[in-house]
């Protein structure tokens, strides 16, 4: 008996939601026509493109794209300049904390830390009362608020942006050059990192993005390069000759401090710094450019770390924070902390006696390296085509990369226009990541998305809350990283909650839900078909 019930429920879920059917399985109802390529084939190709190059198909998207023609659509997506998305800007304008410049955020944080220290415990009540008017003017947004806004912006963009490809590629490249919201002051820097180091470069040259990330305070802080100095610079030698008492003081400073901003002005940084830190150098080679199997050695890692000594950043300090307007945060090269010795990186010699040019040369060298071309190509194929990167396709994209000196617009165009991309065997072959599932479900039902605690909770429970990948590898792109029994239940529950209108901050046309049936809609969005793209 239950089986009969199931079938009735299922057939309703598939038959009554005609529009959704297009979104989930468009091939099923496309008609067959004679010719070089049938409409059914065209529809399937276009659906595949939309499934991979956007955050999900909305009702009507396929017809629109068929009418427009693939190339017209793709070119507009690849070059969105001069096409402002005013509706999106309006939606994002309500997010205030992430719009504050990072220097200003750091200044306020340093200021708040200074005044918190100034207040003795016994006077805390009084000083809080008197400090209030000033505090209101320079309030530091709570980390929770910043993260909520960051996630909201990601979701709103994924669901509502017209420039879908830019959003998809921003997600891809942020993940490639991952930084972690939860690490110290990066909470104040992540929004700017995406805004200035990633997004403007997704259709630019890879070298430009590599350099922008290398110099952004968020990356310098995340992978610790800001603390890396030549082992034999004056500051390192000074640290070695400290009296025990001075060393004790250093240790105190070396401990992670609850509020590092106030304490570590650049002079102190120089005093604290004592030698090489190879964290950034290793991930630069392994994750950002060559890939772990490119044959670089521990020696290369150390030499690259030496090349980047002295690359750090300036930021507001306890002393300057009180002065409004002095809220600069940005890349800083300190020649005194740079290792001026000769270096050998991947067999090439960097002459002694130079400064910032060492790091710049390494960036150029890595961006132009054939191993980087192949590594980037393989990562693109893994994310946008198939879990097991197809060697011929990787080679094809790597060639485009090398021919165009790493022009990402050209590489991305090649990805989505190659006949290899449209091979039938890739269709529906990727399992959506949790974020892709959430975004595509919201798009499928034409939802209006705003700040939503529950969406954030859901993404977190599925292990895919944006900006919270702690490790430099970012979030995985392969299906088997995301498919397991518990995760499937979470996907089904999300589908049911969305269909049932139980997610705060998300509006679906009540008529849509009534027409399709809440249960049927939930089952459709939670079905195995909808988990694929």
């Amino acid at each position, binding site marked *: 008996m*239950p*089986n009969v*019930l*199931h*079938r009735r*429920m*299922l057939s309703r879920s598939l038959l009554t939601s005609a529009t959704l059917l297009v979104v989930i399985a468009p091939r099923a109802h496309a008609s067959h026509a004679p010719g070089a390529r049938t409409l059914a084939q065209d529809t399937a190709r276009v659906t595949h493109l939309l499934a991979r190059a956007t955050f999900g198909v909305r009702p009507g998207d396929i017809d629109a794209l068929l009418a427009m023609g693939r190339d017209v659509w793709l070119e507009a997506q690849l070059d969105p300049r001069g096409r402002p998305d005013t509706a999106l800007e309006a939606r994002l304008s309500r997010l205030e904390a992430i719009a504050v410049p990072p220097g200003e955020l750091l200044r306020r944080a340093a200021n708040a830390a200074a005044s918190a220290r100034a207040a003795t415990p016994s006077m805390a009540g009084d000083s809080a009362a008197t400090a209030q008017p000033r505090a209101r003017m320079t309030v530091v947004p709570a980390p929770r608020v910043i993260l909520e806004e960051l996630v909201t912006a990601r979701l709103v963009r994924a669901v509502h942006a017209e420039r879908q490809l830019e959003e998809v590629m921003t997600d891809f490249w942020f993940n490639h050059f991952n930084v972690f919201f939860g690490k110290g002051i990066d909470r104040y820097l992540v929004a700017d990192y995406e805004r200035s180091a990633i997004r403007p470069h997704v259709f630019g040259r890879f070298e430009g993005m590599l350099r922008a990330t290398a110099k952004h305070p968020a990356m310098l802080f995340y*992978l*610790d390069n800001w*603390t*890396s100095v030549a*082992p034999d610079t004056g500051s390192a030698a000074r640290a070695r000759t400290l009296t025990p008492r001075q*060393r004790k003081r*250093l*240790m105190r400073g*070396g*401990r*992670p401090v609850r509020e590092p901003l106030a304490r570590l002005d650049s002079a102190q940084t120089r005093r604290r*710094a*004592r*030698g*090489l*830190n*190879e*964290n950034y150098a*290793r991930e630069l080679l*392994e994750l950002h450019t060559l890939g*772990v199997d490119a044959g670089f050695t*521990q020696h290369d*890692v150390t030499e690259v770390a030496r090349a980047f000594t002295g690359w750090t950043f300036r930021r507001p300090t306890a002393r300057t924070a009180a002065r409004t307007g002095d809220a600069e945060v940005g890349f800083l090269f300190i020649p005194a902390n740079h290792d001026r010795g000769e270096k050998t990186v991947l067999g090439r010699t960097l002459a002694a006696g130079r400064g910032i040019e060492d790091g710049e040369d390494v960036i150029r060298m890595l961006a132009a390296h054939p191993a980087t071309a192949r590594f980037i190509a393989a990562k693109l194929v893994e994310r946008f085509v198939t879990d097991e990167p197809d060697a011929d396709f990787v080679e094809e994209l790597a060639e485009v990369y090398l021919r165009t000196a790493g022009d990402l617009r050209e590489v991305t165009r090649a990805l989505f226009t190659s006949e290899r991309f449209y091979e039938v065997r890739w269709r529906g072959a990727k*399992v959506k990541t949790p974020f892709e599932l959430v975004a595509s479900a919201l798009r499928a039902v034409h939802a209006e998305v705003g700040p939503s605690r529950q969406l954030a909770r859901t993404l977190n*429970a*599925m*292990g*895919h809350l944006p900006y919270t990948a*702690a*490790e*430099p*590898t970012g979030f995985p792109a392969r*299906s*088997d990283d*995301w*498919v*397991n*029994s*518990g*995760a*499937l*239940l*979470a996907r*089904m*529950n999300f589908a*049911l909650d969305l269909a049932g209108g139980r997610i705060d901050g998300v509006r679906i046309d009540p008529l849509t839900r009534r027409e399709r049936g809440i*249960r049927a809609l*939930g*089952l459709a969005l*939670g*079905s*195995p078909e909808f*988990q694929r793209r």
Partner: protein
Amino acid sequence: MNRATSRRVFVRRSGLALLALGLPPEFVTRSLLAATRGAERSRTLVCLFLRGAVDGLNMVVPFAEPSYYAHRRTIALPAPRAEGGGIIDLDGFFGLHPALDPLHPLYRRGELAIVHAAGSPHPTRSHFDAQDFMETATPGTKSTPDGWLNRVLGATQCTSCTGRTLAHAAAHAVDHVAAQASMTGTTVPALRGVAMGSALPRSLRGEHPALAIEDLERFGIGGNDIGLEDAFAHLYQTRQADVFGTAADDAFEAVRVLRSLDGILYEPRSGVDYPTGNFGRSLRQIAQLIKADVGLEIGFADIGGWDTHQAQGGIEGQLARRLTELARGIRAFHDDLGDRMEDVVILTMSEFGRTVAENGSGGTDHGHANCILAIGGRVNGGHVLGDWPGLETELLYQQRDLAVTTDFRDVFAEIASEHLGADRLDQVFPGYPIDRSRWRGVLR
């Protein structure tokens, strides 16, 4: 092998002995089943993966080595003092980080063993690769399709018999009973291996069912709507074999079993205080599954935050805070399980160690060997096991890191075999010849 053999090994041996007496196989099977049913609870291994590479040298400190203090000018921990506050002395040479104080009584009572200078023979210092190698237990081979814990599930489970002779069939029957016996009360294969978290770790991935559970208390469909559960089960059942495979079937089966537990009302033993946060919750829920007798053989939880390149601190600070959470969690779990720790081994692992010398930022970079902790009633505790390679620069691996003197697979293999009763160890550790003489005697 001078510790009590596992139940499965015991059953298998006594079964074979009965066969050798010429008794008919059916009788042997029946009598073994009767003898073992409900006689003993299943054994459980709880794996804690410290992702990010914990600094084992500041966790279990070789404080008697002068080089330790020479290499670590600001982050070295002060030697043990009579008045306390420094390293906790274990044996005059090694000592615990004071943040691990909750584990000290377990060491003294012989329930905590430490294997130092353990790790992988592979030189990689990539987190990603090293974790992969440790989770597949095949250092240097990236193409290994499944994780070692999944293969352990295979090796403690009855496989289909392909033998043709009567003797083989009889031996298989004994195996089968032995396998059943080691899974007393189990009806849900997926609950034999459970990882707490949103994703199944590489260690547990593979052909044998295993489950990732983010939160036991919210493990169900639509707030326990059985109609929806059945409808989804039907949708996923009609899939041809694909990436979703049995994941959905396993999930629904587990949901049905867990629904029958009054798990939501779970209260740890009184006085037990798990640390707040994901790690504490994971351990609490693993304890809950063990006490519920759902047949849990392998529990798995992650704890991160160990990649202390910068300002890792000493007695206090970043590393100390992580160690505090780790130690409080393990201790709470231990106290919560009480005498059931007789059937449980907790095993910590981390992908590699950290540099012997501190770096320029008051932290440590990626290194080589590390230490492994094993906790349990049958652990050969109260010892720091393994050979100590020394910390003087010329003794270090590549002149910078602690050398590996115990292959991590020798620790894993001993636990898999002697605690969980896994046989076919050659399949659990492919390409690694099993040599029991290398085992460190982690278990009594």
